[in-house]
């Protein structure tokens, strides 16, 4: 299956891609399968979307597709046919809030 993935700007820059990424995903098209294929092709993204070891989604990363939020779903839930067919993209989104508070501890003593 050819799955289209749209990454946030920071990760597009990190992976060195300008726009959507098209991935070949074998078998059932699940969140896990899409992320496995994404990390295999762009290993610099390892650890940026989910934990290296536990594979848990990072707290401020969200997964959307077909106007649905798959962030809280099991990573083994099958994504809509429109994603599997490439008609609709799988969206990786940086949460709109939260990063500054969690990340900027240098100024404190």
């Amino acid at each position: 299956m050819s799955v289209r993935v749209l990454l946030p700007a920071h990760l597009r820059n990190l992976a060195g891609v300008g726009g959507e990424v098209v991935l070949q995903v074998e078998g059932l098209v699940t969140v896990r399968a899409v992320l496995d294929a994404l990390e295999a092709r762009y290993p610099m993204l390892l650890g940026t979307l989910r934990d290296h070891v536990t594979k848990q989604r990072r707290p401020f990363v969200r997964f959307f597709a077909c106007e649905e939020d798959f962030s809280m779903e099991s990573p083994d839930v099958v994504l809509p046919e429109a994603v599997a067919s490439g008609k609709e993209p799988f969206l990786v989104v940086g949460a709109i809030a939260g990063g500054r508070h969690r990340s900027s501890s240098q100024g404190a003593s």
Partner: protein
Amino acid sequence: MNSVRVLVGTHKGAFVLSSDGKRQKWDVSGPHFGGWELYHVKGSPADPNRLYASQSTGWFGQLIQRSNDGGQTWEPVGNQFTYDGVPGTHQWYDGTPHPWEFKRVWHLEPSATDPDVVYAGVEDAALFRTDDGGKTWGELSGLRKHGSGSKWAPGAGGMCLHTIIVDPSDPKRIFIAISAAGAFRTVDGGVTWQAINQGLRSEHIPDPDAEVGHCVHRIAMHPARPDVLFMQKHWDVMRSDNAGDTWHEVSGNLPTDFGFVIDVHAHEPETIYVVPIKSDHLHYPPDGQLRVYRSKSGGNEWEALTKGLPQKDCYVNVLRNAMAVDKLDSCGVYFGTTGGQVYGSSDAGDTWAPIVENLPSVLSVEVQTLA
């Protein structure tokens, strides 16, 4: 002619400032990794073109970048920092046990002799090492498993290992500092560790003289005198003449002994620099005046260095990794502010001038002296 390269980490990217030995005209390169927090960028003494950078955000976590050409191009290397075994708990702000959780890399310390060997100090506090240029990282867990680990607590900035000093005369002897646990020393390359906090006194902890729990902000050493250490603690500027076995206060006539940075002149081991900050709740200089203080006597007697620095309406901070010195004959001193200025002095602090004035908030400053 020699030249210098100043490596600046900021809240929104890294910048490389380059100049010849006169240090009057500067080229500014960056932002590298725009939009990411660059907690630290440091070059290898063994190969000055090899640079390492700690890149992170709250959204996408930690990355390590490596350059083999002095910062012109970069490549991401390994970013897996997994604690050895079950990491256990440390104290939380309210005194309850809290599990160790990796958050970010605060400090990267490349080996003096091997460009592929780097130490990384992380939050929650632990020390990692790579022997393959950053591809893989392993924890030196003897530090975290020091018997006091369960008593360590975060400072307001998190429980970070922010200072790593490798003794140039004995690379197996390493000094590290953690906010808010204190200073530690190993003499066997990181297998076993000893807390070296005797003489520190911190009124904001239950036992002011405790073995651990002190909020050390920064330690500095002159490479020719590895037994002499200088420390900017949360409050108090301290000195040790026996490699940390005991400390004594050298705050002397400073207007305030709170601060973050401390560093040592490249050629004068008794000349040290601090930037006094008014208090731990204000985090800006006293009287709106940005002043570096220099002691030529290893502490106690301090002089204010003000020429070229703003002496009115200045309310920036200078964070713990944001001061460095070069090794040119006339020692250069550099520091960055939370207001985005990087100041340099090519005459050991007598006079200052801004190198850049409008960067994002500066987190770290390092200097390379190039042949």
